[in-house]
């Protein structure tokens, strides 16, 4: 690792630390109340799910509408395990179990469906998500449509923040590696990628599985934070909520996803005074952004600290994303 890399990693670390201190200070002075705290945690959870979805939609170019299904797997894994083992250890194990389970389901579902393209894949993943939800609704162990209540809470903003940063680092490091280059090659031109010896299905499945794992972690965090889960939390609308973050931020831009997750979270807080007008204003904001920036707020480009602070030019490694 040469000096430039160290310098630039340190500058991201400093920025992250500054955000942490900012949140601490704001809590201390009462600027962020309990409601604000809830918002921050929910932003973080949406962000983890959205970063995973952006890997699938933005990087590998596979249009998936089934993200809610994978979130449900993670949420129920955490709900079931933590209610019987109500310790922090149980919670950590439950996140792993949810992630692995979700990854396996994604693998089984992904291998046949990722051969489909465009609309067909979207419908297939939507179907899978609905199947997961309906199974959960009918299994005895998941307690049907009522869901599971009184889940012990182990999630605070520090946990979500940490996992958010971690998932961004994992995704960004993957994208900027030979594996990520192959994934993007499949998105850019599948036929050409295949002619160069790249197993296109394998790379699509890698992105899909990792996306599902991140969704499951987001689901698990959500279950323990809200302290209840029910099948209604993971309908088609949940997939759309995450999809909106990805599309609005820019399909293929991780920093765009981070920016939008935060912006939409804050918008939600601002709009709570508008009562029923809230959804109208929200929709208008979406329409305006899509009219003027159809490629999303950041398009495919990434926010780069390196370019801002010490632009060396000609360096191929661009900026890394941050959490907020």
């Amino acid at each position: 690792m040469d000096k430039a890399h160290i310098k630039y990693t340190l500058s991201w670390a400093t920025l992250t630390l500054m955000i942490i201190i900012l949140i601490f200070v704001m809590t201390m002075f009462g600027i962020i109340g309990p409601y604000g705290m809830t918002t921050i945690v929910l932003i973080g959870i949406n962000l983890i799910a959205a970063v995973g979805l952006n890997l699938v939609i933005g990087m590998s170019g596979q249009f998936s509408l089934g993200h809610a299904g994978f979130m449900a797997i993670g949420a129920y894994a955490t709900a079931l395990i933590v209610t019987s083992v109500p310790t922090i250890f149980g919670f950590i194990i439950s996140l792993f179990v949810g992630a692995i389970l979700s990854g396996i389901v994604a693998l089984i579902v992904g291998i046949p469906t990722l051969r489909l393209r465009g609309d067909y894949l979207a419908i297939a993943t939507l179907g899978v998500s609905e199947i997961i939800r309906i199974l959960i609704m009918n299994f005895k162990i998941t307690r049907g449509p009522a869901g599971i209540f009184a889940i012990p809470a182990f999630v605070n903003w520090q946990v979500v923040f940490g996992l958010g940063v971690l998932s961004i680092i994992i995704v960004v490091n993957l994208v900027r590696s030979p594996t990520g280059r192959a994934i993007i090659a499949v998105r850019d031109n599948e036929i050409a990628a295949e002619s160069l010896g790249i197993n296109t299905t394998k790379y699509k499945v890698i992105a899909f599985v990792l996306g599902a794992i991140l969704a499951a972690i987001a689901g698990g965090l959500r279950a323990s934070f809200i302290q209840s889960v029910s099948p209604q939390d993971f309908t088609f609308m949940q997939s759309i909520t995450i999809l909106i973050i990805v599309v609005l931020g820019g399909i293929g831009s991780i920093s765009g996803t981070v920016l939008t997750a935060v912006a939409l979270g804050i918008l939600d807080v601002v709009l709570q005074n508008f009562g029923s007008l809230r959804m109208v204003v929200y929709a208008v904001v979406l329409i305006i952004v899509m009219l003027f920036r159809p490629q999303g707020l950041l398009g495919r480009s990434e926010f780069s600290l390196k370019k801002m602070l010490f632009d060396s030019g000609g360096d191929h490694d661009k900026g890394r994303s941050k959490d907020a």
Partner: protein
Amino acid sequence: MTKAVLKTRELSVKFGGVTAVNKVTIEAHENELVGLIGPNGAGKTTLFNLLTGVYKPTSGEVVIDDGDQLVNINQLPPYKRAQLGIARTFQNIRLFKSRTVVENVLIAMTAKNRPYVVQAMLRTPSFYKKEAQNREKALSLLEIFGMTNVADELANNLPYGQQRRLEIVRALATTPKILFLDEPAAGMNPQETQALTELIKQIQVQFKITIVLIEHDMNLVMAVSERLYVLEYGKVLATGTPKEIQNNPAVIKAYLGEEG
């Protein structure tokens, strides 16, 4: 004569009622430059797609020489054929447009390299070292083709001739044994075609690989090919050296029509 690295036996493919390629038996030898010509719709690109695995044949077989044994690759998907040493370019350019020139070459090197996912995740020093080595390799390949000055340009921003050139470089980055060029001179002006002629000859000498070329530009085909196959209506009409083909009455008839 040197040994054959690629052979087809009675290769046919049918699309509904149309037999696009009909019992084609051809072969290409080690380090040979084979031209494939024929009127529009003769089945040249279809034959390419059969050889590279985009289509599966209705009957017949494709065989390549892998080391010392002959391997039937009929059922292999394109990416496995590419890993066995078959590379190709496309009639309509298929670059990774959102990536830079050097990244296009790096992507082509992925299949041959062992992935280093763990190092990439942890950003260990060995990751940066490997990345630098790969980039170095890609740049040295680009240098052979005089493209180092555009290495960090987006592939989409290159002029047309350069894009065609990059497609060839990218195919070579997979270290192929056989290179298929599908109309590399399509849409090029005479100067560009001249440069391409030089380039193809250079590749044959420098990389010691077999090249199979589809081309409509007769000057180019006749200048570089050692042997030609002429296709018409999905069948091999004639084979021979460029000189023999030029004087073959059946070929002249196929191209110019019957006299009188």
